[in-house]
C-alpha cells in the first residue's frame, strides 16, 4: 500500500476536477500515475483517459510507469488485467500529438489533406527563409516599392527577421486596423503612451490633436509658466560652480537657450538637456518638494521623441514601416501556406491553430465527439503550455468547477518558457476555473533539508513582484540527509572575470571530488563519496561555455556538455559538409581544404602547405600533382579516398554512400579516441538519420543533402545536439537551466550567477492592447526609436525578470544533496538583473550556513601525457567487394521493350497490332495443334529460384511442351552470342516441368519474327 502525504491524498480524491500545484521534487509524476490508476480503478478504461505531457520523453516515461503499475496490480485484479489488455488504446501524448491525432481523424472536416505530414523544424526554416529571401530579392511588381522603402530604413537581415516575426505572430487584426483606421490606432497608442509615461492630464490635453511643431512650443510655454521649473532654472543659472556637480556646467545657459530656441529641433534638444540635468539629480541637488513636479516634466520630455501626437513623424514612419513589413509578410505567408498545401504538410504551429479552428462553434458535432471521447483529461506541466492549450481544455472539458474530468498539475514557479509563448498569467487564471478544488503538494522527496530551507527562505522574499507566483513553503522528506549550500563569490576582475570564476569553480569541484569531501546519501540511507558524475553545472546560456570547458580541462575535471552548441554549427556537421562538398564539387577549394584538415582525413597543415603553396590553380589540381609525385603521402591517400567516395556517390543511394564514407574514413575510431567523442558520434549518427528520413519521403540525392546541410549551416537552423547513447561514466554534466528542468543531480553548481539574465527585446513587439511595434531610424534621433518598444519595455523587463526568478528557482531545486552558486561581482556589485542580485536582496533572511569560497581551492594537476603510437597491432580490413560496372548492357531498351510487348500479346494480355500477324502465325503453327491444356507465363519455383515459362502446353497424347518465344532472328541471336543461353534456359525449363508433371516434356524456342520453331530438347 502506498503511503501518501495528506496533500497527495487530497489530490487523488476523485469526483471533481482538480488543479494541483506541485513544487520542485514533490512527486508530480508519481501523482499523475496514481491518478490515472485511480481512474481505472473507479471504472474508466485507458481509452477514456487522455494524458498530456510537455515532451515526448515525458509521455513515454509516463506510459511506461503506468504500464508497470498496471501490470503489478493486474496480478491480483481482473479489472486491472482488463485495463492492461486494452492499454494500447491509451492516449498518452504531448499536446501537439493529441491535436495531431484529432486533425488526422477529422482531416477532411478540417479542410486538410488526409494523410498530411508534419514539417520538421529544418524543413520549416528552409521553407520560411527561402520564401522570404525569394520575395525580398525578386518581389512582384506591387511589392517592389514597399521593399525599397524598407531597405532605405533597415538592413535586409533586419527586414527578414521582422517579416519572420510577423508571420510567426500570425495575428493580422492590428495591421488591418492600422491600414484602415490609422487615427484610431494613433489614439490608442497615444493614450497607451501617456498612461505608460505617467503623463498628467494637463500635459496630455496639451498634445492631443495638436501637431508636433505646435505642441513643442506650447510645452515650452507651459514649462516656463511653471513655478517649480522657473525656480529650478533660476537656481541652476545662478549657482556657483562649486554648487554644481563636476562637469555639469554645461547646463548653465539652459534656460536662456530654451527661451531663445526657434525650431522644434532645438527645443527638443534642450528639453533633453533639462531631463539629463534633473533626472536622478545629476546636475544639482533638487529639494524634494520640487522634485515631483520636475519629474513630471522629465517624464514628458522622455516621452516626447516617441509620442504619437497628431502628424507625429514617429507615428507616420512607424505606420508606414509596419504596413510595408505587413505587406511583405502577407505575400510571404501566402506563398508559404500554398507551398505547404502543395506538398500537404503542416508545421507545429498549424497543428494547434487548425485544431483550435476545428473545435470551434462551426463544428459542434466534432467538438461533441472529441469531448465525449476524452472522458478524463490529465495534464502535466500546465504552466509551460501556451494559451491555446487552456482554450482547448476549456472547450473539451467544459465547466471544470462542476465536473470531474480534468486534472492538471503544474507549478507557476517553474514556468520558464515565456520565450516560447508559455503564459504563466493564463495559467493562474486557468487555476481559478477549479474554484476550491485546488491543492498544493508540499513535501519534497528530492532535496536535503539544508537546500530546502535555503530555497524557502530566499524565494519567500524573491517571489514578491507583480508577475511572481505565491510561494508556498516546501517541507523536506529526506530529513536524515546531510546537504550543504556553498557560495563561490569572486570580486570584480574586468579582464579575467569569467575565466577566473570558471577556474575557481573547476578547482572547487576538483578539490571536493578528488579529496572525497562531499558525501551523498542515497534513498536507501547508504552514504558514499560524491563522484564527478554526481555533479551538474547549470548555466543560463552558452555564452561562456568555452571558458568553462577550458577551466575544467585545466583542472582535468572530466565533463560532458548536454546538448552542446547548435547542432548545425558543430564541427561534426561542418566537417561532414566540407567532405561532401569536396566529394561532390572538386572545384570547391575551401571545402576540399576543410575536408583534408578535418579528422576525416587529417592531412597535416605542413603537408597541405607544401602541396598547395606556389600556385593559383584550383586546389585539387595542385594536390593531384603533388600526389602523383608523392605517392605515399597522406594527400595521395586522401585524394584516392575522395575519388573512391565520388564514385560511390555516383552509383549508390545517398544513405549508403554516407555509410560507406563514415566506415571507410574510420571517423568513428577518431571520435572514440577524443574527449566528447560520444557526442560527436551521436551527432554524426543524427545527421545520417536526417538524410535517411529525407530519402524515404521523396527522391533525394547526395547533392540535395549537401545543399540542405549548407542552408542549415548558413541559417544556423535551431536544433540541439544529439544525446550520446553511451556516455563514458564519471563526468560532470554541463547543462542549461532550461534543459535541466524535470531532472535532479546530487551536486548542482549554478555558474555565472552574477551575470545578467535577460535578453534583448525582439525586433517586432506585439501587445494585446497596443498592437505591433517596430524600431525605426529617424534622421533626427541618435538611436533607433521604437514607439511601442519604449512603451512596453518596462513591462517586458518585469515579465522577464519574473521569469528569471523562476529560472533561479528551477536551477536551485535541481540539487539533491549539495548546492553551489558561483558568481563574480561587477564594478558596482552584481548585475542588477542577475541571480546573485536576487540572492543578495534576500540574503538577510537566510539562516542556512553557507560555505563561502572566494578563491581557488587547489592548483591544477599536471596533464596526462599525449597518446602514444602503436607498432604491433594487426589491422584487418574487411574485403567486401564493390559492385563493378557491368559491360555494355546486353540488350538495348528498344529490344527489351519490344520483347515485353510480344510476350504480353502472346499471353493474351494485350492486343498490340504490331504483333497481330506473329500471334496468328504462332497460333496456327504446328506447336499449337492438338493442345488440350495450356498455361501462359507459368511461374515455377525451386527453392528460391524462380523461372517463368512463356507457354506450357499439354497435347492430346498426354505429352507436354515448354515454349519460349523470342523476338529477332536466330542468326542475330547467334551473332550476339545469346543463342547458347537460350538453349540452356529451355533445357532448364524442360527439366523443371518434367520433375513437376512426371511426364514427357519437349522444349521449343519460337522465333516470332521469323515464325520459326526450333525443337531444343525432349525428356
Amino acid at each position, binding site marked *: 500500500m502506498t503511503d501518501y502525504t495528506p496533500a497527495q491524498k487530497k489530490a487523488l480524491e476523485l469526483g471533481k476536477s482538480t488543479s494541483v500545484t506541485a513544487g520542485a521534487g514533490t512527486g508530480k509524476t508519481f501523482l499523475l500515475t496514481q491518478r490515472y490508476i485511480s481512474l481505472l480503478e473507479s471504472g474508466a478504461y485507458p481509452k477514456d483517459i487522455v494524458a498530456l505531457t510537455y515532451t*515526448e520523453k515525458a509521455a513515454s516515461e509516463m506510459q511506461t510507469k503506468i504500464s508497470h503499475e498496471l501490470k503489478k496490480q493486474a496480478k491480483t485484479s481482473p479489472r486491472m488485467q482488463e485495463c492492461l489488455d486494452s492499454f494500447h488504446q491509451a492516449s498518452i501524448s504531448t499536446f501537439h500529438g493529441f491535436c495531431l491525432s484529432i486533425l488526422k481523424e477529422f482531416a477532411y472536416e478540417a479542410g486538410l489533406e488526409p494523410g498530411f505530414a508534419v514539417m520538421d523544424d529544418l524543413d520549416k526554416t528552409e521553407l520560411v527563409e527561402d520564401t522570404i529571401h525569394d520575395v525580398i530579392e525578386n518581389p512582384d511588381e506591387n511589392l517592389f516599392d514597399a521593399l525599397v522603402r524598407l*531597405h532605405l530604413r533597415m538592413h535586409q537581415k533586419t527586414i527578414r527577421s521582422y517579416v519572420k516575426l510577423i508571420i510567426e505572430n500570425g495575428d493580422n487584426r492590428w495591421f488591418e486596423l492600422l491600414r484602415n483606421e490609422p487615427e484610431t490606432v494613433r489614439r490608442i497608442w497615444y493614450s497607451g503612451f501617456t498612461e505608460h509615461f505617467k503623463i498628467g492630464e494637463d500635459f496630455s490635453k496639451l498634445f492631443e490633436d495638436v501637431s508636433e511643431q505646435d505642441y513643442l512650443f506650447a510645452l515650452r510655454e507651459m514649462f516656463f509658466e511653471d513655478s517649480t521649473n522657473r525656480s529650478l532654472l533660476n537656481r541652476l543659472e545662478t549657482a556657483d560652480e562649486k554648487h554644481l556637480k563636476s562637469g555639469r556646467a554645461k547646463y548653465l545657459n539652459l534656460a536662456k537657450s530654451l527661451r531663445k530656441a526657434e525650431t522644434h529641433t532645438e527645443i527638443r534638444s534642450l528639453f533633453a538637456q533639462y531631463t539629463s540635468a534633473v533626472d536622478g539629480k545629476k546636475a544639482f541637488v533638487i529639494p524634494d518638494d520640487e522634485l515631483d513636479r520636475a519629474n513630471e516634466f522629465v517624464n514628458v520630455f522622455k516621452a516626447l521623441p516617441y509620442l504619437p501626437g497628431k502628424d507625429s513623424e514617429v507615428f507616420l514612419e512607424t505606420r508606414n514601416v509596419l504596413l510595408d513589413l505587413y505587406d511583405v509578410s502577407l505575400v510571404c505567408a501566402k506563398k508559404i501556406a500554398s507551398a505547404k498545401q502543395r506538398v500537404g504538410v503542416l508545421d507545429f504551429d498549424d497543428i494547434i491553430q487548425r485544431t483550435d479552428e476545428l473545435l470551434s462553434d462551426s463544428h459542434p458535432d466534432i467538438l461533441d465527439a472529441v469531448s465525449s471521447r476524452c472522458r478524463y483529461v490529465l495534464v502535466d506541466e500546465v504552466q509551460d503550455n501556451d494559451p491555446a492549450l487552456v482554450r482547448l481544455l476549456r472547450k473539451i472539458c467544459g465547466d471544470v468547477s462542476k465536473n470531474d474530468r480534468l486534472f492538471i498539475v503544474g507549478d507557476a514557479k517553474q514556468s520558464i518558457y515565456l520565450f516560447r509563448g508559455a503564459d504563466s498569467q493564463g495559467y493562474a487564471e486557468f487555476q481559478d476555473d477549479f474554484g476550491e478544488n485546488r491543492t498544493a503538494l508540499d513535501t519534497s522527496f528530492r532535496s536535503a533539508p539544508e537546500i530546502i530551507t535555503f530555497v524557502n527562505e530566499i524565494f519567500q522574499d524573491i517571489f514578491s513582484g507583480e508577475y511572481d507566483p505565491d510561494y508556498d513553503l516546501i517541507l523536506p522528506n529526506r530529513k536524515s540527509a546531510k546537504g550543504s549550500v556553498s557560495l563561490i563569490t569572486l570580486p570584480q576582475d574586468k579582464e579575467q572575470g569569467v575565466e577566473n570564476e570558471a577556474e575557481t569553480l573547476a578547482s572547487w569541484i576538483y578539490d571536493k571530488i578528488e579529496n572525497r569531501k562531499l558525501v551523498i546519501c542515497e534513498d536507501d540511507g547508504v552514504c558514499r563519496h560524491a563522484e564527478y558524475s554526481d555533479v551538474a553545472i547549470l548555466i543560463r546560456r552558452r555564452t561562456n561555455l568555452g571558458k568553462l570547458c577550458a577551466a575544467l580541462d585545466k583542472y582535468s575535471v572530466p565533463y560532458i556538455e548536454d546538448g552542446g552548441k547548435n547542432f548545425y554549427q558543430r564541427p561534426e556537421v561542418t566537417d561532414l559538409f566540407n567532405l561532401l562538398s569536396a566529394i561532390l564539387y572538386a572545384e570547391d*577549394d575551401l571545402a576540399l581544404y576543410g575536408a583534408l584538415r578535418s579528422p576525416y582525413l587529417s592531412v597535416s597543415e605542413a603537408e597541405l602547405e607544401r602541396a598547395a603553396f606556389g600556385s593559383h590553380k584550383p586546389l585539387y589540381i595542385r594536390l593531384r600533382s603533388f600526389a602523383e609525385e608523392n605517392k605515399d603521402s597522406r594527400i595521395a591517400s586522401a585524394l584516392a579516398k575522395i575519388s573512391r567516395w565520388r564514385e560511390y556517390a555516383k552509383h549508390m543511394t545517398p544513405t549508403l554512400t554516407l555509410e560507406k564514407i563514415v566506415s571507410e574514413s574510420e571517423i568513428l575510431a577518431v571520435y572514440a579516441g577524443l574527449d566528447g567523442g560520444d557526442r560527436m558520434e551521436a551527432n554524426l549518427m543524427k545527421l545520417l538519420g536526417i538524410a535517411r528520413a529525407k530519402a524515404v519521403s521523396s527522391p*533525394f540525392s547526395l547533392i540535395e543533402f549537401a545543399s540542405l546541410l549548407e542552408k542549415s549551416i548558413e541559417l544556423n537552423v535551431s536544433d540541439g545536439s544529439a544525446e550520446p547513447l553511451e556516455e563514458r561514466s564519471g563526468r560532470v554534466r554541463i547543462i542549461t537551466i532550461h534543459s535541466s528542468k524535470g531532472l535532479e543531480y546530487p551536486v548542482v553548481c549554478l555558474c555565472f550567477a552574477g551575470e545578467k539574465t535577460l535578453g534583448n527585446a525582439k525586433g517586432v513587439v506585439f501587445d494585446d492592447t497596443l498592437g505591433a511595434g517596430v524600431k525605426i531610424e529617424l534622421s533626427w534621433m541618435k538611436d533607433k526609436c521604437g514607439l511601442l518598444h519604449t512603451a512596453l519595455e518596462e513591462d517586458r523587463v518585469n515579465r522577464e525578470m519574473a521569469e528569471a526568478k523562476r529560472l533561479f528557482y528551477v536551477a536551485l531545486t535541481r540539487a539533491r544533496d549539495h548546492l553551489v552558486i558561483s558568481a563574480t561581482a561587477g564594478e558596482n556589485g552584481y548585475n542588477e538583473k542577475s541571480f546573485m542580485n536576487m540572492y543578495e536582496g534576500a540574503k538577510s533572511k537566510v539562516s542556512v550556513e553557507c560555505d563561502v569560497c572566494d578563491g581557488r581551492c587547489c592548483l591544477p594537476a599536471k596533464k596526462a601525457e599525449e597518446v602514444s603510437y602503436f607498432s604491433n597491432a594487426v589491422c584487418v580490413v574487411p574485403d567486401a567487394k564493390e559492385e563493378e560496372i*557491368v559491360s555494355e548492357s546486353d540488350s538495348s531498351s528498344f529490344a527489351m521493350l519490344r520483347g515485353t510487348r510480344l510476350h504480353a500479346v502472346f499471353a493474351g494480355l494485350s492486343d498490340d497490332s504490331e504483333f497481330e500477324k506473329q500471334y496468328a502465325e504462332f497460333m496456327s503453327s504446328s506447336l499449337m495443334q492438338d493442345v488440350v491444356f495450356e498455361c501462359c507465363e507459368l511461374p515455377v519455383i525451386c527453392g528460391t529460384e524462380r523461372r517463368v515459362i512463356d507457354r506450357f502446353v499439354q497435347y492430346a497424347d498426354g505429352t507436354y511442351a515448354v515454349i519460349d518465344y523470342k523476338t529477332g532472328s536466330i542468326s542475330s541471336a547467334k551473332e550476339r552470342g545469346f543463342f547458347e543461353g537460350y538453349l540452356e534456359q529451355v533445357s532448364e525449363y524442360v527439366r523443371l516441368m518434367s520433375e513437376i508433371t512426371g511426364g514427357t516434356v519437349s522444349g521449343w524456342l519460337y522465333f516470332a519474327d521469323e515464325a520459326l520453331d526450333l525443337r531444343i530438347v525432349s525428356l
Partner: protein
Amino acid sequence: MNDTSSLETACSLFSLNSKTNPFDTWLIVENEDVRRRAFELISTPVLQTRITTIKSLAHTILEEQKAGIRIIPPEEQYLLFSSFAKGIFPSSKSIIENLIDLYITLTLNNTDCPLDTEKGKKASEVFSKYRMWCAEHNASDAISAIWYAIPFAEQMKPACCICFGLKSTTPLAENLLGVFSSEPIIFDAEIPPLSDVEIFEYGNTREEISQTLDAICSLEESGVLGDDILLLTPTLQTTLPILEEIAAGFFVNRKTPLTFKTSERKSIQNIPVIRAVLAFVSSSYNPKETDLASILECRAFNIKRRGVTAGTLHRAVKMTGSLDWRNIGTEEDETLKTVLCDILNKAEERQKSARTMQDRISALLDDLGDLGWTTSPMTKTEDAARNAFFSLLDRLFAAGTSHAPCSIQDFYAILSRGCRKNAGIPYPENETAFRVGKLRSAAGTKTPYVFIIGLSSKSIPNISATLPLLTVQETKALLPNRYKKSAEDTAYYFEAACASASRKLTLSYAKSDGGTSFAPSPLLTRIGEPNKTDCKNPVHSVFGCQKSAGRCVAERKEIDEAFGVLDINDTAYRISSVNKAPSFEEGRFLEIYSEKKSFSPSFLETYANCPFSWYIRHHLSLENPSDFSSEPIKIGNVIHKVLERYFSVHDCITEETADLAYEELCRLTVEEMEKTGIKTPSWKAKELGYLGCAAKDSSLKKLIGIETGFAKEGYRTDSSWLEREVEADFDGIKVSGRADRVIMKENGSFMVLDYKTGNKVETNPKKSLQIPIYSEAVRQMTGGTPSVGNFVNITSDTAKLSTPFKNGADSMISDTKKHIAEIIELVKAGKIGHGDKCPDFCPYKHICRKEEVLSDD
C-alpha cells in the same frame, strides 16, 4: 478438417498431393513471406501459382479460366482514381491515396461507402465511376479481382486445397474460398508456449539494430545458417532502409558481409541513375541547381560536358548568386552556359509538344535513348533499377488513362511516386543471408533463432481507429468489430511470431528513434520486463571495431587486432592531431619569405586581422567564390568607379560647383549601378540612398560636403593620382598597391583617401595599413608632406570621414613601418594563429577550427 500445426506439415501434405496432381493441388497461405518460406521448405520444383495467397489465387483463377479480365497495376489504379476524383475532390495526392485505401477496405469487407455524409457521397461517386470504367474495360485491380474471380472459381474444383494459417481473412476472401473448395484442409498456425526468451531495451533504433545484427553474426559464426535466423519487425517498411545501411557494416568471420533476404523490394527512387532521370524530367519545367547537378554528374547520360561538372555549376551559383541557368556564370563560363542550355533544351524540347501521358513517356524514352541512358553500362543494381524503371514506364504507358492529357508536373509526380512505391529491386543477398519479415510472416513457421525488434508502443499494436477519410464514429458504424478484431489479430500474430522460434527468441524495443521517444509495447511487457542493456560495441561491425580501436588508442591500451581499421598508427596520429594548432617545418616560412621584399597592403592587412585568413588567401591562394558575389562588393566597385570618373574630369568640388557636382555624381552613380544589371529592391534602395529621397538624405550630398571642405583647405585632385599604383620602400621592404585617391595642395602637402563602402570602418591603426603605406609611397614619389590620411566612408546611408590615426602623419607612418616589420617577422616565423575577434561573417569560419583548437601558439 481443422488442424493446428506448422507450415512444414502443410508443405509436406502439399508436396505429397502435388506429385500426382501438380495443377490441381493448392496451398493457400496468408502472405508473401509465408509463401516464400513454403517454397524454401519444398526444395523440389513446384508451380509457383499453386502455392498462393488469396490475392494471387484470384489472379490465377482469372488467368487460367480465361476470364479475359485485365489486372490493372497499382499505378494505373492511382491514375484512374486521380482522373475520376478530379472535380469531385480537390485534386491532391493524399486524398487519392486515401480514397484508394478506403475503396480497398470496403471491397474487402463487402461493404459500401456510407452515403449520409457529403464526403461519403463524393467517395461513392468516385468509386462508382471507377467500377464503371473497370466494367467497360474488362479490367480489375488486384483486390477487386477476388470478387471477379468468384464465379470462375466454382469451375476449378481443385483436387486438394490446403489452407494454412488464414487467420484474418476478409469477408471477400471467405467468399472466394467458399466457392473455390468445398472441403479445404485447414491448418491453423500452431502457437506453442514460449521457450528461451530474452527481452532488451535499447537507447535508440540504430543501437537496437546494431546489437541484433551483432548477435546474428555471432550465431552465423557459430555455424548457424542464415536460413535458421529470422528477424521480424512490426514496421518492416521503415526498418528495411536502416537495416540495409547498418548491415553493410557487419561481417561474419570478419570477411563475409552480412546480408538479409526479404520478400519486400527496395525502392529505386534514390539510386543516382534513376534520380538523374527524375531530375531531368523536373528540369523540363522547374530547373534547380541540385537537379542540374545530378544530371551533370550522371555518367549514364552521354552529355557533352566539356569539363563542366556539378562543381562548376555550384561555383557559378556561388559567384553570381544567379538562378538564370541559361546565362549563369561569369563571362569565362561560356562552356557552362552552353552545356546547361543543351541539357535544358533537351529536357524541354520533346516534352513541350507532349500532351498525354503516352506522349510524355515516349518523349522521355526518346530523350533517354538519345542521351545514351538506355544502353549505358551500369552496375548490376543500377541495371536492375533501370529495368524496373522501364517496367514502370511500360505499365504507365499501358494504363487506361495514359492517352488523357497529363501536365509535366503531374507526370513528374507520377514518376516519382512510381519509383518510390511501385518500382522496386531486390535487396542484395548472399548465401549467408538471414531472413527478415514482418510479424505475420512468421505465423506457423519454425525457425531456430528469432529476433523481434521495434516492439515499442508506437509500433505495436498500431491500429488506426479510423478508416481512411472516415472518423471514428463513421468507421465504427461501418465496421463495428474492426478495431477489436485488428487488436486480436495483432496480438495473435505477435504471439505466433514469438512462437515461431524453436530454439531462442530475442525481443527488443528502442526508447527512441533518434527523435521521438518510445515506451515498450504492452504486448512486449506482457511477456516480461525489458532488460536495460549496457551499450556494447558490436564486435562484428566495422563501426564497433573502429570505435574499440579508437578507445584503445586514447587509453593507450595495446591492441592485438584492429578489425575494420586500415592502420592503427594512422588512427593514433589522427586522434592526436585533431584540433591542433597548425605547425610547420622549422624555417619553412623563413625560406619562402626571407627573400620576399615586395608586399601588397592587402597581404599585410589581412595578416594583421587574422593570420589564418591571410594563410588561406595570400599564402595558399585558395579561391572563395563568395568573394565575387555579394552586393556589398559590387557597390564598392560602383562607387570607386563613380569617383574615379568624376575626379578624372574635375579636380575638386567647391560650394559653387556643388549643385553641378551632385547632378553629375548622381548621373554617374545611376549609370554605374545600371551596368551591374542588378534589379533588386535593396539595390534600388542603395541608389536612392546615394541620390537622396524623401526618407533619406543623399549620401552623395554628404560626400560633397566633405569634398567642399577639402577644396576649402586647398586640396585638389590630379587625375594622375586616381586609382594609381604606388610603392613605398620601408628600409628595403617594398609595399605596393593601388591608392584610391590622393589629394594635394599647392604647397606639396597631400592626403591619401581610401574609400570604404561598408558600414564598418577600421578603427585600429594596427589593422589599417593602406593609408600610411600609400602616404609614405606618395611622400617618397613626390617629396611632399603627408597629412593624416582618411577613410572616406560612403555608404547609401551616409558619408563621413574617419581615421584611426590620431597622432599625426609622422607617427602614422613610423608606427606602420614598425607594424609591417613585425608582421613580416611573424610571417617568416610561420605564426598561423587565429584573429582575436572574428567578424560576424567569415568565409573561413567552418574550416578554421578556431573553436576546436585547444592551444594556439
